[in-house]
């Protein structure tokens, strides 16, 4: 997947704007996913298809089950019921690292910087298929030195892009909260994922940087990757998402382009409670609530 590749972004015209609607070319398909924590059903997704090559926003009130759904899809948690397939492969009982190796890579809502590794080491760790990750080959540097240099070049390019180049040699533990978000996203990109799942990538990032981050997310799509991201900021959702999936109390309650979602009665109810009837503010009046 190279950056110079010209990709046409798939159109979702004609796709039904309803929960569980079929997509022309789904990358991820989930069926009957249920996850219970004791008496609480955190996730209960009947059917969901994520279209390949576009940016899908997953939104929903706090506690809707978005993070849990991410965990389930990426092998960090096991559903009580349900099956799902990624790029045509059943994911069922695959452990998390194998899911990642298949090309579905996630970031965490609570960032996981590897504190006592430097920023550049964090980045290099991300690269897939490293020869030197075998103990015996690792002992012989000539076997992996060349690959390491290539990885390092790629890492440096990404650090530049994510405005972290000046922190290259610092311990990741010294980064600020926003910088950690950036590092985690850049590190995930080192794996060259085909589907990247970002859990609140913009949370805590300053507005100026958010703009450039949004640019990065869009460029991921333009490189042909599929992006799913969780976000609470409706401005962001409006700005970059091609499709919006709304979750509430574990289930998908609505799907559609953001224009349609903002006016959807079920969504408004889920966010604001049933006593409200004003349309949800998606920030269409620029800067009104910034």
């Amino acid at each position: 997947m190279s950056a110079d590749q010209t990709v046409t972004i798939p159109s979702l015209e004609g796709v039904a704007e309803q929960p569980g609607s079929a997509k022309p070319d789904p990358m991820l398909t989930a069926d009957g996913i249920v996850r219970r924590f004791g008496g609480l059903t955190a996730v209960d997704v009947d059917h969901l298809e994520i279209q390949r090559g576009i940016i899908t926003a997953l939104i929903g009130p706090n506690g809707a089950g978005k993070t849990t759904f991410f965990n389930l899809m990426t092998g960090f948690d096991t559903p009580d019921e349900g099956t799902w397939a990624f790029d045509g492969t059943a994911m069922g009982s695959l452990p998390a690292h194998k899911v990642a190796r298949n090309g579905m890579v996630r970031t965490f809502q609570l960032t996981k910087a590897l504190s006592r590794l430097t920023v550049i080491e964090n980045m290099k760790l991300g690269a897939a298929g490293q020869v030197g990750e075998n103990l015996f080959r690792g002992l012989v540097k000539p076997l992996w030195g060349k690959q390491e240099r290539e990885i390092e070049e790629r890492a440096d390019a990404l650090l530049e892009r994510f405005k972290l180049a000046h922190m290259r040699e610092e311990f990741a533990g010294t980064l600020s909260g926003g910088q950690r978000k950036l590092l985690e996203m850049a590190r995930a990109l080192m794996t060259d994922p085909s589907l990247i799942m970002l859990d609140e990538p913009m949370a805590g990032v300053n507005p100026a940087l958010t703009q450039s981050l949004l640019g990065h997310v869009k460029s991921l799509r333009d490189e042909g990757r599929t992006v799913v991201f969780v976000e609470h900021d409706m401005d962001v959702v409006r700005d970059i998402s091609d499709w919006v999936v709304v979750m509430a109390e574990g289930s998908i309650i609505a799907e559609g382009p953001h224009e349609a979602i903002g006016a959807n009665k079920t969504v408004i109810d889920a966010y604001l409670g049933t006593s409200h009837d004003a349309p949800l503010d998606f920030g269409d009046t620029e800067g009104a609530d910034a």
Partner: protein
Amino acid sequence: MDWGFILSETVNKFFGFQAAYFAIAAIGLNIHFGYTGLLNFGHAGFMAIGAYGMAISLNEGLPLIAAVPIGLLAATAFALILGVPTLRLRADYLAIVTIAASEIARILFRATEIGPFEARNYTGGSTGINGFSGPFKDLNPFDGPVDLWFVNFSAQDAWIVLVGWTIVLLSVLFVHLAMRSPWGRVLKAVREDEDAARALGKNAYSVKMQSLVLGGLFGALGGMVFVLGQSSVQPTPQDLGAPKTFFIWVAMILGGTGKLWGPVIGSMIFSALLQFTDLTLRGAQEEGWIPEWLMDGVQVGQTRFILLGLGLMLLMAFRPQGIFGDKRELALDVR
């Protein structure tokens, strides 16, 4: 008090086989805890299994070249037994299991019989094994005492000192090569945050298992050098039980966890300190500087551990990162 004698004995212990075997074992523990974050509180178990594996094989007439690999194989099996059920669970489970398993191993080595099996015929029961080191001594190239200007060793000691420090240097080289590699990077990533490593496609379970086995092998080697050096293997706590595990931890922390030379320097200092406090206290007592009501001869052995404990507390207060550690690193919040 003969300060010259105390000093020369202290320097001797700084370079003696005691420091060497401590260093080898601490290098193993450093792979476990320092680089991978595995809480191994039963390192003496690895030492015991390596030591007994080798000693029993030698005693049964096998050559050294077979006895050492048998000890290493036994330690590998021990690591797998500990790792398989625990490494998928939270970190504390390994800690509990290693404490218990190392103690079980030692008690089995001490047992007269295990069920119908006359274990004593192989392990010597509570008396241990004493006459096994012949094949090792036969290889000794030194035929007289070795006297360098700062240390002197008997011919017998010189041989184990030479072998011990050779193993230390090779081990350090190995750890250096391993930890600068991408493999080492995965290890450290698992130490920092296992889930982050898994999210990037790294098999955390496998890498922890590799670390547990590898560190255990160094523990076993350390145990072998130890019992070859003292020509006897005893199933006592001081030799191969919880106190030994504790001392290896101290040596590693003293030098600096997760640092290449940390466990080596820490072991040298620890071994020298043990000797120095012992001789000084004894000397002071002979001089009559310490009144009888405060401490008698028997208590010297215990008092030096009290002093060491105090020293350790001071170290933690003023240099928590150890000798080689990086304070900056320690200050980072690690979860």
